[in-house]
């Protein structure tokens, strides 16, 4: 991947432009001047502009990921805002929300300001999500108002489920007051118990402690009931089970709840059978589930129960992941492989249109967070990606730009690859 400063004037020439906001798909050019959209359509000239040949490429909004872990501050050996940014650019992402489980956790306005200031000079838009409770300890709600003022876009204790229902209720009530969504990592810690993988026939065969699907679904149900009671905004992260999809669908159909949900590429791509190799890169929370769950997640995307794709990009060091299965930490990186993985599963294998898949990565997540959604409007800051949507490629070490390497996608054949990512005055070009 080569990153260069944008020329004063750029024309993205001859691509197929997909505008998720207007839901239009047509061949044309995009003229960018000083980092802003100037015109979209058939463009001649201007003299001296840099021409980027987009023939055969899809030009669309830059991807937006509501769920990444960039580990800064505290675990810069795993990832930094800068290395995370590179991973994002390689994956076609121009905007990400970083989770607050840093060290120390981002539970104060000062911590939010640190990330906002540090991210200002980086070429990807980075929005911090503030901790829902002080120290992410799950006991006392955090200074949400002050964090919002510094730029926090949502609140979450991600990584740590808020087990105390009273605290969850208070967090929902308080965040509603300031109009912010709450994101709870839904896994009942007592039902999950020691589980390190999905509970079922595969955990029985492997002798690994199982984490049953109800550990997720009972907490999702609790959260939805509480959100309905408090009339709060709730976003369910990394839905992994058919049962949770059912709860979300029922609430969407039968209530006015401001409810949204995301699913990760890895929960769409893998099933628990893959753990027969004891690959610690497949150890993730919530766990990789059964085929029945995977199919339900795809159905949930098809009927709108699940609103968007989010990677839950979670870097860990090689040393940590080389440990035995019980000691290896939960999580995997997912930015670089995201589009190729979801396009393969949802497009090639499940029949979703490319437009729908791209909407799940662009318009949908932006709507949830209230980010700008009309990215082809004149004078809008250019935040675009140009993709080779049908390219088959094998994901390898050289495709990783994260500081970490913990991905189960190594060696997988993916379909579709970002070619150019254009954002904040730069062009990132992938091979």
């Amino acid at each position: 991947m080569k990153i260069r400063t944008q020329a004063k004037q750029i024309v993205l020439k001859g691509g197929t432009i997909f505008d998720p906001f207007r839901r239009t798909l047509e061949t044309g050019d995009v003229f960018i001047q000083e980092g802003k959209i100037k015109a979209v359509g058939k463009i001649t000239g201007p003299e001296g502009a840099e021409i980027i040949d987009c023939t055969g490429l899809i030009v669309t909004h830059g991807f937006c990921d509501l769920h990444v872990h960039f580990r800064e501050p505290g675990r810069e050996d795993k990832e930094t805002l800068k290395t995370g940014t590179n991973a994002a650019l390689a994956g076609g992402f121009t905007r990400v929300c970083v989770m607050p489980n840093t060290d120390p956790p981002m539970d104060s306005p000062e911590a939010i300001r640190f990330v906002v200031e540090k991210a200002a000079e980086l070429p990807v838009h980075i929005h911090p999500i503030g901790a829902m409770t002080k120290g992410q300890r799950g006991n006392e709600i955090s200074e949400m108002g002050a964090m919002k003022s510094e730029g926090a876009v949502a609140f979450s204790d991600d990584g740590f489920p808020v087990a105390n229902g009273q605290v969850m209720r208070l967090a929902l009530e308080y965040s509603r007051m300031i109009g912010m969504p709450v994101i709870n990592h839904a896994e009942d810690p007592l039902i999950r118990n020691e589980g390190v993988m999905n509970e079922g026939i595969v955990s029985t065969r492997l002798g690994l402690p199982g984490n049953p699907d109800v550990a997720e679904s009972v907490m999702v149900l609790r959260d939805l009931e509480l959100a309905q009671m408090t009339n709060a905004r709730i976003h369910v992260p990394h839905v992994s089970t058919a049962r949770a999809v059912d709860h979300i669908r029922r609430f969407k159909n039968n209530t006015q709840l401001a409810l949204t949900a995301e699913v990760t590429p890895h929960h769409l791509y893998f099933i628990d059978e893959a753990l027969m190799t004891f690959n610690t890169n497949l150890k993730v929370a919530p766990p990789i589930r059964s085929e029945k769950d995977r199919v339900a997640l795809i159905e949930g995307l098809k009927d709108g129960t699940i609103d968007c794709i989010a990677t839950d990009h979670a870097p860990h060091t090689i040393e940590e992941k080389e440990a035995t299965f019980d000691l290896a930490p939960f999580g995997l990186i997912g930015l670089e492989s995201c589009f190729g993985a979801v396009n393969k599963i949802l497009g090639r294998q499940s029949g979703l249109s490319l437009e729908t898949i791209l909407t799940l990565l662009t318009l949908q997540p932006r709507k949830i967070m209230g980010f700008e959604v009309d990215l082809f409007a004149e004078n809008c800051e250019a935040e675009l990606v140009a993709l080779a949507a049908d390219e088959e490629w094998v994901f390898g070490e050289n495709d990783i730009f994260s500081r970490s390497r913990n991905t189960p996608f190594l060696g997988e054949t993916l379909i579709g690859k970002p070619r150019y990512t254009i954002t904040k005055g730069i062009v990132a070009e992938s091979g």
Partner: protein
Amino acid sequence: MLQQKHLLGLEDYPAEDIQTIIDTAFEFRAVLERPIKKVPSLQGKTVVNLFFENSTRTRISFELAQKRLSADTVNFSASSSSLKKGESFKDTAQNIEAMKIDAIVMRHPTPGSPLQLTKYVDAVVINAGDGTHEHPTQAILDMMSLQERFGKVAGLKVGIIGDIAHSRVARSNIFGLTSLGAEITVCGPATLIPPEIERLGVTVSYDLDAVLDWADAVNVLRIQRERMGVGLFPSVREYRSLFGITVERLERIGKEVVIMHPGPMNRGVEIDSTVADGDQAIILDQVLNGVASRMAVLFLLLGGKI
């Protein structure tokens, strides 16, 4: 020769190779009955017993098997807690490998660790128990003992009694016995039967009397009292009354059932002392067959000559 380089588990292990190991074990069993019990088969080969968990019985059985085959043996005990403190599993493995050894017999508390070990070393890896996953040599010696008693394993009705969920012995027995054509019923408290186990081709029962009535042999698992502390079963008293192999229970059945136990036993809990020491029990044959089975595994995997 066996088809696989290592012995990691019996799931998907070729049935004919299990049979080859058992047949070879019977030949070594004959050696063990001789006045001079040592053969030169593995002279010059070095085997490391790498134990991350205490298990005197299994280690002694392997060590004796190695000595009877004239292999050089080294014991390496590392507590898993020292690993938690930072010495990596990979380092330990590579250090041992660097000393030019031929095989590693490993006991480790984590499922899958023997497979992981094969990625770090070139030596032959023999799983001597990986947490709650598999214990293949135990299952082989159990099957050998059944064959010794009944002439064959195929068609036998075998009950496995106790904590199935946390038992590597149960898993390896299920994989091995189904592969050789035995019928299996697992029996224990519902809280200790893992989900969807029927899909491994076994029947689940909670009625020990019915299982004893049906079975040719039962393998009685050790019940670990730690499981009680977290509420997986309510009390030893209740366990014994529902799932203990008692004298009264066997008398009531009124037919002979062969009793096996992988040891160490909780006498008076999962099995009565009188039963363990009685005629129906083949527990001490299992111990001797354990040495013979491990000799067979080592011999076949290390390419020894008779």
